[in-house]
């Protein structure tokens, strides 16, 4: 039997390490492109202010990037460490995009990021610009392959279960790459990263403008951020809608949970803006707009969005079919030449994952009772209310960002950048909002997929490694402790960098600075460090 405490701790660890990692990734995605844009302007116009801006944002980028690298390597290793049955069961499919990410993207990004910092005086202007663009493309290709991998967990296309090897195997790699869920998620996620970078730049520039410091650089940065941000914010919402729509094809349960749609509503369903949950979980009061829900989720006026209860009934049928698949699989494992069992398995294998839901209640899945089947079917419902609320937070912020960048873009095009102090202060305090939206988005994607780690294929609890509780308590506390300490240090360093502002003199031997020690004492080899 499976130790659910180990499973829960494994989930907590994955959630914690992934969410920490994704504090840094979106900023890398957005800031790298904005640095490349600023440096392009520098190369085209030859104005040193743009190089100064590139270097200043680059310093902040570097600190953030280091945290991204530090937390990223854990992500790649912990599939095997904490999710060993997952790694065996779907590694044939899931491992490939992850490895290609390393080959095609992360190598590019990591190799050139050093040159971005150290190559200024060793490369030509254009040469360095190319390096900066390569870093930005590397980061974004990286996101592409990671989201292809994640997209497959949401919509496992192009693969089939092989009873002889006891795992999912690739049948059509192009289907894995061009998975509609993966493509929509990719654009949605990188655009969210661009919004994050744009708010970061805009917010810090607004602070400079309010204080009247580094005004020339801040104005230019704000213009870049406002235009880049507006385009990105539009893309996030459009592709978010695309994600919502494709999710209705593959993950109807997730959407019904996001909408707290317990019962099937006649089409076109209303869209619930706010609701109050009752004791049984169902809403006792709600405020809805008619028709909108049906339009968003089905893009039609006549298709129904099935409610949660109806989906649970459908899950029961699939579990029963999964029991048949499981029994056939056992027969094939016992005797590989059993053609009858193979024929049954061929018919029923897509429901095998539903059969595995019963593993929580008994080992011999094929003998499950009606009661156990009903419980397993109930398990297919993710927790509704956390999803309902985070979805509304994310969506509200998404629409707000469009309006906000629209306003900034309009004012920038009129030349009214530093005239409205309240708006500047407001912009400063908006700094955390993109992270709230982005972490909410990942919560919806991953928590909303539960109880599945791979939708319909493998239940999360069945995918975990058989570790000891102590192993997980140790690792989870070490990670949380170390990451938190490092995060606090990073924020303090960023504040110092921002306070110090951009460097006035660039690449000269006598460049004094209080946050980067660039000048050495005239007589070297002096103070001894305690060692």
């Amino acid at each position, binding site marked *: 039997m499976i130790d659910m405490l180990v499973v829960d701790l494994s989930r907590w660890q994955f959630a914690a390490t992934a969410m920490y990692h994704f504090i840094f990734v979106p900023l890398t995605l957005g800031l790298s492109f904005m640095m490349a844009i600023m440096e392009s302007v520098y190369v085209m116009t030859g104005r040193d202010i743009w190089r100064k801006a590139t270097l200043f944002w680059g310093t902040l980028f570097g600190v953030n990037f280091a945290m991204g690298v530090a937390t990223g390597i854990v992500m790649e290793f912990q599939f095997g*460490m904490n999710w*060993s049955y997952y790694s065996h069961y779907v*590694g044939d499919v899931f491992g490939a995009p992850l490895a290609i990410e390393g080959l095609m993207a*992360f190598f590019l990004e990591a190799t050139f990021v050093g040159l971005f910092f150290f190559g200024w005086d060793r490369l030509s202007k254009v040469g360095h610009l190319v390096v900066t663009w390569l870093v930005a493309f590397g980061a974004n290709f990286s996101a592409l392959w990671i989201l292809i991998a994640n997209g497959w967990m949401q919509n496992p296309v192009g693969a089939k279960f092989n009873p002889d090897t006891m795992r999912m195997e690739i049948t059509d790699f192009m289907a894995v790459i061009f998975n509609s869920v993966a493509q929509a998620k990719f654009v949605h996620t990188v655009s969210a990263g661009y919004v994050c970078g744009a708010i970061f730049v805009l917010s810090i520039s607004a602070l400079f403008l309010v204080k009247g410091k580094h005004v020339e650089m801040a104005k230019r940065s704000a213009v870049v951020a406002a235009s880049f941000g507006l385009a990105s914010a539009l893309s996030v919402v459009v592709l978010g809608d695309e994600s919502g729509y494709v999710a209705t094809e593959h993950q109807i349960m997730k959407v019904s949970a996001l909408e707290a749609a317990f019962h099937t509503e006649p089409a076109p369903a209303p869209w619930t803006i706010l609701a109050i949950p009752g004791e049984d979980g169902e809403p006792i009061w709600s405020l809805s707009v008619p028709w909108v829900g049906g339009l968003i989720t089905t893009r039609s006026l006549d298709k129904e969005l099935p409610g949660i209860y109806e989906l649970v009934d459908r899950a029961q049928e699939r579990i029963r079919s999964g029991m048949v698949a499981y029994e056939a699989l056992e027969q094939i*494992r016992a005797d590989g030449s059993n053609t009858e069992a193979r024929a049954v398995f061929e018919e029923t294998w897509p429901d095998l994952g539903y059969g595995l839901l019963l593993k929580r209640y008994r080992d011999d899945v094929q003998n499950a009772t009606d009661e156990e089947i009903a419980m397993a079917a109930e398990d297919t419902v993710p927790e509704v209310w956390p999803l309902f609320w985070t979805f509304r937070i994310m969506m509200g912020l998404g629409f707000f960002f469009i309006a906000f960048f629209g306003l900034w873009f309009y004012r920038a095009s009129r030349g009214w950048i530093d005239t409205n102090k309240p708006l500047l202060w407001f912009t400063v305090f908006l700094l955390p909002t993109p992270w709230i939206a982005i972490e909410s988005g990942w919560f919806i994607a991953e928590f909303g997929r539960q109880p599945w780690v791979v939708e319909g294929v493998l239940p999360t609890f069945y995918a975990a*490694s058989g570790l000891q509780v102590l192993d997980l308590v140790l*690792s989870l506390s070490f990670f949380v402790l*170390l990451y938190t300490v490092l995060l606090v240090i990073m924020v303090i360093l960023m504040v110092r960098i921002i306070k110090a502002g951009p460097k006035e003199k660039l690449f000269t031997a006598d460049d004094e600075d209080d946050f980067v020690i660039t000048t050495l004492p005239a007589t070297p080899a002096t103070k001894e460090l305690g060692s």
Partner: protein
Amino acid sequence: MSTIPLDYETLRLIWWLLLGVLLIGFAIMGGRDLGVGALLPFVARTDEERRVLLNLIGPTWEGNQVWLVLGGGAIFAAFPPLYAVSFSGFYLAMIVILLALILRPVGFKFRGKVSDPRWRTTWDWALFVGGFVPALIMGVAVGNVLLGAPFHFDDSLRIFYTGNFFQLLMPFALLAGLVSLGMIVTHGATLIMGRTNGPIAERARQLGTLSGIATIALFAIGGIWVALMNGYVVTSTIDPNAPINPLGKTVELVQGGWLRNYGLYPWMIAAPVIGFAGMALATLGLMGRYRWLAYLGSSAGIFGIVSTAGVSIFPFFLPSSTMPNAGLTLWDASSSHLTLFIMLLATVVFLPLIILYTAWVFRVMRGTVTTESLSKNPNAY
């Protein structure tokens, strides 16, 4: 799959080789940075000296570490059961390696941002841990691979690992850890001697010479130890073209079993020979201040030593001590035929590109690092 132009057996062999290339790639490329990290507090004593070392490896270490990331990714994609068993089985050892590796990127970036000596010394020790600990523990892990790990499967291929962290610290495994640490420290020392001046280069030269001699001695002891201890031998025939089945073979323990391959395939002797010769040349190079001889010698030495472990246990990746038949070999721990082929295509396209642009970046960043050269770049660590 008749449409795949290479047969399954060939692809499995190619991926066995490619995995070797990636792991050796990390040991040589990443080993530079781990070695310099492990030497940092001893070779460089003042802040300026330490900055010279950090800026020696600073511009390229991130790219070098991707060899490890890619090695991990390639094990996942090409040998999923191996990835699943080894990473979950050696769980706490992996956690220790990860915690050490986490300290590196932040150590490089954070250290120079504050000038307080206590701050800097703290990060110097963090960077030391980030180099020393992975170099040691990865070797301990290889030692445990040769000893066999306590794991077995049930019929659904669910994994059961019955050992714990302290059982990894067997004498032979610790010896392997020291060999790994020794070769990586020697390698880092050759880099420091080659690309810095003055007292740092001299201290690195002396420490590197010592560790070079120690590595040769420890590697030789390891060889004798392996001859005396039990190795795993597959006694049934495995169909190298069949779907994976980690439970479908018979494995026996034989004294000196890990040396059998050298009788079956005499060319494999080249691996330990290159290991000894490379480390000897590195030591001579360090003694005589021949920087290229030293650097290429330690690179060849690492290649030879890692290859020795790889070919000795062929066709095994990870033998099992508690259920020998469940030990993982390249024939029964691989991905499907199609996946191996797709991954090969990706590798054929991208690996040459990686080597090209990495070489270019190294060329741009070439030259001796001195305290004077640091002051020109405001981004220097």
